[in-house]
């Protein structure tokens, strides 16, 4: 055996380094047709199956490769934030909460690739709210552009255990049609059920939580819109925090949620619920009903037919004055960070994904947990409004046929920061735990939001 000398060791190391340097251009060339993707792992296995089918279809159609990683919800957000901070990014990113968390601020800071040309390919098909929701303000260019390409949407419907309603001696068909009365309808059921031995049951699954990331904010905003406070931020990005109508809606929302909690109609743990805890509590039949985004509560029990059939999904009632309440439409889709190596291939992949038939098949394979971003798909494909699946039909009607509005971080990225700070959850906790009046908690929250939004002056939209 040849003896390893210092010189030979150094020579060997040099050879390895030189080979790697010479080989790199070939590797880079090979990577030109490969697009790297970080994608959220599905809530149910079927969603992942749907995504794999999209990838397979694209690879077959284009001859390109998709190097994708499916990552669970929370770690994916950490990876995305880390990647955008360090600049070591993949070509395509997607996260269900990105449009209200990382996209607004990174679009503002000019860290994302403008996808207007990609979105343009399906402009005529898109739901107007979905199209509006893809446009974010860039503080470097002083313009609004599309920074993600919508392909799925969601709203918050009501989820109700019909068996609990009936056990309490009520009929869901008797539920009032207006907002406050609808919530109040369920309150007396709690006592009736407890009298029948269900010690730990609560009427309402409200989420006055500061943990988040999404459910507490979403719940508050549905109340805000129901009470007429949708003008808190207008599409030009301007806040209207002193508007008496907005302030009144904020106070009413805080008062309703905190009073229901203090009166004992909400599980005490709701104060610290994360986005999965409310689903778990509902599945454990700790509460009769709750309002929550997507139909994940139902889809999770899709294979347990008896329980799936026992749940009822309901769209929004009318507001207290009898007018239709627009649902806040969550719009989701992939985005491309600046610094991505294969922007053109990434755009091609996204263009493929957002095609109506491709995205529709993907979403259907995922059991309809997410809705399309194109109302024509809902109207023409019987899957979405089939009365045999009451959950999907009610959800699709609320999200794609009934009136909707975008979420506020679309209009002003400061609102994304306000959401992340869980300001509304904190305001609810101020009333519940610290004894503040809803008026005082509203003032405190609005002042805090005003301070955050002041960091994001929008000059032109």
């Amino acid at each position, binding site marked *: 055996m040849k003896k390893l000398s*210092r010189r030979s*060791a150094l020579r060997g190391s040099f050879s390895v380094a030189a080979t790697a340097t010479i080989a790199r251009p070939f590797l880079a060339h090979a990577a030109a047709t490969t697009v790297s993707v970080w994608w959220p792992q599905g809530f149910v296995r079927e969603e992942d199956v749907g995504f794999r089918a999209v990838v397979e279809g694209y690879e077959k159609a284009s001859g390109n490769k998709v190097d994708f990683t499916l990552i669970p919800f929370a770690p994916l*957000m*950490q990876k995305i*934030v*880390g990647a955008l*901070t360090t600049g070591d990014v993949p070509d395509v990113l997607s996260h269900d909460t990105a449009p209200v*968390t*990382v996209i607004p*601020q990174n679009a503002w800071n000019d860290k994302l690739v403008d996808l207007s040309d990609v979105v343009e390919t399906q402009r005529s098909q898109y739901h107007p709210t979905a199209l509006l929701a893809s446009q974010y303000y860039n503080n470097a260019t002083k313009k609004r552009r599309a920074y993600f390409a919508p392909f799925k949407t969601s709203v918050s419907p009501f989820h109700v255990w019909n068996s609990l309603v009936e056990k309490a001696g009520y009929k869901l068909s008797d539920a009032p049609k207006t907002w406050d009365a609808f919530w109040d309808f369920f309150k007396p059921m709690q006592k009736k059920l407890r009298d029948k031995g269900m*010690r*730990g049951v609560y009427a309402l699954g409200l989420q006055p*939580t*500061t*943990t*988040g*990331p999404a459910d507490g904010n979403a719940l508050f905003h549905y109340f805000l819109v129901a009470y007429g406070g949708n003008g808190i931020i207008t599409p030009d990005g301007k806040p209207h925090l002193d508007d008496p109508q907005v302030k009144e809606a904020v106070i009413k929302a805080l008062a309703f949620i905190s009073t229901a909690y203090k009166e004992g109609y909400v*599980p*005490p*743990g709701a*104060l*610290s619920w*994360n986005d999965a805890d409310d689903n778990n*509590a509902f599945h*454990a039949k*700790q509460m009769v009903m709750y309002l929550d985004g997507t139909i994940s509560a139902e889809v999770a029990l899709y294979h347990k037919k008896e329980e799936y059939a026992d749940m009822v999904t309901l769209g929004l009632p009318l507001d207290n004055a009898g007018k239709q309440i627009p649902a806040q439409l969550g719009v989701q889709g992939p985005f491309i960070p600046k610094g991505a190596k294969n922007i053109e291939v990434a755009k091609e992949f996204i263009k493929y994904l957002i095609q109506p038939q491709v995205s529709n098949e993907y979403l259907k394979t995922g059991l309809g947990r997410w809705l399309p971003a194109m109302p024509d798909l809902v109207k023409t494909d019987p899957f979405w409004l089939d009365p045999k699946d009451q959950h999907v039909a009610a959800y699709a009607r609320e999200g794609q046929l009934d009136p909707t509005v975008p979420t506020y971080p679309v209009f002003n990225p400061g609102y*994304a*920061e306000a959401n*992340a*700070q*869980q300001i509304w*959850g*904190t305001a609810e*906790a101020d009333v*519940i*735990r610290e004894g503040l009046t809803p008026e005082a908690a509203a003032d405190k929250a609005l002042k805090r939001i005003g301070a955050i939004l002041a960091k994001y002056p929008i000059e032109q939209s």
Partner: protein
Amino acid sequence: MDGAQVLDAAEPLATTTFTAARRGRRYWRGNLQGSEYAWAVAFVMPYAAVFLAFVVYPVIYGVWLGRSPALYEELASEPIYVRTVVNTVLYVVIGVNVKMFGALLLSGFFMRRGWWVKALLLIFVLPWAIPALPSFMSIHWMLNGQWGLLNNILWTLFGIDGPGWLETSRWLALGSVITSHIWKWMPFWTVILMAGRMAIPQELYEAADIDGATRLQRFNYVTFPLVANLYLVCTLLSTIFTLGDFNSVYFVSGGGPALSTHVLATLGIRNAFEVARPDLGVATVLSALPLMIPLVILLMRKLRTTEVQL
């Protein structure tokens, strides 16, 4: 000055430079001769590279991210930050001291002879031996106010509706977190202090017995002086570990209820990834440095102490 004089004057200078160079080389090379030095460098290089890449670079990058004074102004203006600092101090002071004092007492108990003591020790170290994540998540579920084990036991045995341990009161939740931390880490420090006790020469106890020392006197005048330094070093180490502890708080209370039980480590992660402000997250964690650095200096000084101080 002629040429010879210039040469004469240059000679001592050259000799001094040469000697300094040799001294410098010896300083770097130590007693290594010829190729030994090159091999030594070759062996150290991988460690140095890893150290630079995974210790020096992240630390410098972190400090660079959190360099702006505006971040600290922003932090100080947030009520949650002030509450978090108070929580951190309470968590560290109560958690570390109760844990270490308990460990000191229990280390004496587990020094007793008998198979049942050894069996008990085996059970006692289990919380430390099992992974932190599942154990803290189990505690989180056990303390659930509606369906947790603890409240179910209270209801079944006494008909009492237990409190929401993690759900309504900051102090109950923080107390639960501190208790969980103590439960998890006390066994480890007990074993360390047992090792310290084992190193005490038996003759000292025999001499104390001959002098008629009681158990308390044996502890006061023999055991404690001899393990005092170890106890202090362990306390300092534990303080440093606990300041950076994320798991106990994150998985037991999650910072709740209403963000009232965050410590700097969990608030830093929250600011970095939930609020999506990595700079603010780093600043949150860096704000513990004024406490951390003196502790590390004190620890280093203590570790230099080689003699037992009776």
